[in-house]
């Protein structure tokens, strides 16, 4: 072996050591986060999966004998599970587009320069910081057919009295109204930021070309906003699919089972009926469904980003 070869080998060894050191340094920075992620995210998920495949032992309050997919079969055969999924779907199909449309619409309207705009924007934050249970309780009082102020006001224009909690359709409307009141401001904030970030020259060019308000909105603003709208939809979807607390505080899932969303059903089965294994199976099914749908939405979002 020549001196050059030896120098080359030593250099390669040093580079390898350097890369290894670099790798160790990088992982050492990431390690605390990884450990935290495993503890806080992965462990509960794997524990839920474990419980879903066992008979929950109430005496030790932990996973007991292995039962395979029995809990999943039981859940799939329970009409209440499918009813709750259907109720959740109805809520999502109405609430999400409504909130996104309202959020971007309001943002577009308040985007113009006018005095007091900052104050109005600040007011929009209030519903977001109110705890969902409090929001549900307050709205329950406002919509109460006997004492509520809403029916009182509606009476002045000849509407009602409406039975907000006794009529299944109105009860679902109640949930959507409360949820929309809470979350539309969040979308308004995102939309406002997106509108402010749009290139002004494109709008100036449209104006020079004689585009009116509607043409500017439809042919310029919306195409530019589509990626943001899609991303907002995905963010809101991830929040909305967890809907639970507002229902618990306002309609209790009723009347009958008209607003019994899936997360309320899972909660009741687990913590009121102590059917933890079946609840874990339901939670796993919902997790998988959510992941699949989220993946589809993200794919759609990317496609829209590419297109626009």
């Amino acid at each position, binding site marked *: 072996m020549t001196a050059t070869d030896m120098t080359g080998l030593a250099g390669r060894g040093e580079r390898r050591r350097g890369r290894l050191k670099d790798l160790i340094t990088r992982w050492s920075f990431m390690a605390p986060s990884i450990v935290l992620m495993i503890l806080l995210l992965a462990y509960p998920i794997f524990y839920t999966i474990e419980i879903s495949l066992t008979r929950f032992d109430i005496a030790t*309050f932990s996973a007991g004998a292995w039962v395979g997919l029995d809990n999943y079969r039981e859940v799939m055969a329970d009409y209440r599970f499918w009813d709750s999924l259907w109720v959740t779907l109805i809520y999502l199909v109405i609430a999400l587009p409504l909130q996104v449309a309202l959020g971007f619409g309001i943002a577009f309207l308040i985007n113009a320069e006018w005095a007091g705009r900052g104050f109005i924007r600040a007011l929009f934050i209030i519903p977001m910081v109110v705890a969902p249970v409090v929001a549900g309780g307050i709205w329950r009082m406002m919509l109460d057919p006997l004492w509520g102020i809403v029916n009182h006001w509606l009476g002045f224009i000849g509407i009602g009295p409406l039975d907000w909690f006794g009529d299944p359709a109105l009860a679902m409307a109640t949930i959507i109204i409360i949820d929309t009141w809470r979350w539309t401001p969040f979308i308004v904030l995102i939309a406002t930021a997106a509108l402010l970030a749009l290139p002004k020259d494109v709008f100036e060019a449209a104006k020079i070309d004689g585009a009116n308000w509607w043409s500017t909105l439809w042919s310029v603003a919306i195409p530019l906003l589509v990626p943001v709208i899609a991303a907002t939809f995905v963010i809101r979807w991830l929040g909305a699919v967890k809907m639970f607390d507002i229902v618990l505080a306002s309609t*209790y899932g009723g009347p009958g*089972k008209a607003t019994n969303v899936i997360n309320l059903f899972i909660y009741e089965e687990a913590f*009121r009926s102590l059917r933890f294994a079946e609840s874990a199976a339901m939670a796993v099914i919902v997790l998988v469904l959510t992941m699949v749908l989220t993946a589809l939405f993200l794919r759609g979002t990317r496609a829209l980003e590419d297109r626009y």
Partner: protein
Amino acid sequence: MSSEIGVMALNRKRLAAMTAAVVMMSATGSTAQADEGLGTAEDPVTVRIIANEAFANTWQTTLVPEFNKVYPHIEVVFDGVPYPDMLAKMMLDATSPDPEYDAYLIDDPWVPQMAEVGALIDLKGEDIAAITDDGYDWDDFSAAPLAAGEWQGVQYAVPVRSNVLLRFYNRTLYEQAGLDEPTPEQTWDEFFADAEALVRDTDGDGQDDVWAISTYFVRDSLTPTIWQSILNANGGNLLDEEGKPAFANETGAVSLETHKRLLDYAPPGGLGHGFSESLQAFRQGLVANLFNWGSIYKATAVDSASTTLTPDEVGIQVLPVGTENAGTHRGIWIAGISSKTDRQEASWAFLQWLTSREGEAINAALVGSFPARLSTLESEPAEPWLAPVYETLKHAYAVAGEGGMWRIRSPRSDAAQQILADEVARGLAGQVEAEEALGIAAEKVERALR
């Protein structure tokens, strides 16, 4: 004086029990931690109790100071927990190797669950008997409330806040409607005949503003107790002698239809009414009748801070009579001691005091809790308003005992109750016919109880 004698008797028994324990431990070389006893001024003992947040704070501030007049070295700490979360929290605590709580306040149907996991000590067993006051009379308890703390022949808990579903009625509204005051013998048919007259437009604006009834209609685990009280009054039962559902029949369906028919005479939005809404409507004089838990009487008829009504205006009795008997439903809060606590003696000292005749009287007078002891119910009440309440309670305990008017007794009773809540709610909302709702409920309850 009787308390002092009790303490002395307790101390003598404690001494004997401790001596025996020391001998046993010496003989076996045991290192188990000794019971902390009743505490001393230098070394007080703390007893932690998990309780319903609805009354935990009141008990902490009102009853514990009274207890400390007798046992100054025992600190009792109540942790209030929302009712829906209580069972899961208690089970989690009871199954841990080192439970946080020394005693548990348990709702009527939960004793089997708690007993099955070995969470509770036998209150009539040797250990507790050794530290029980000679004057503590188990036979003095009414049978129905005491039975709530029993499971498979073992007394795991004692009644500390007895309760039953009762009918409250507003005498003024009955009088204004030109009706005679109802009696405990009133049947459901008579009730509905009165209900027609009780729904009225009192201010002449063309809209009804007073209604006949409010109670539980909302989707809630306690709503089936109304249907069940009607079912029991009609001679039906939730389970047969083999423990299988026995309610999916004509009696069950007729009872559910009766419950649903109440909505015709309830205020707008009645289907959304539960405990709070119905209570509020009655307190404000908007409904003539309220079927709710008897323990609300003080806050409904006595406390001017919470009600517009007075004891003279509020009548109290059992629910109307069905084809067999009157209706009610037992809902006793009972207390048991953790089988793993090393503060057994202090815990039992508190529960013993609370369920003694003296403690019951204090609990009733200061907090409005209902007693379970026959001697308390027969005695001169501390407050005049308690007299009709005690009379009604005696009647209701007897009715509940005769008709077996309580929720399912099983380690899986909560699962069964949730199923009933779901199906009764669907039946009341008209989403399915009564027969279908009860048929599905029966099938699911049977599977849940296996």
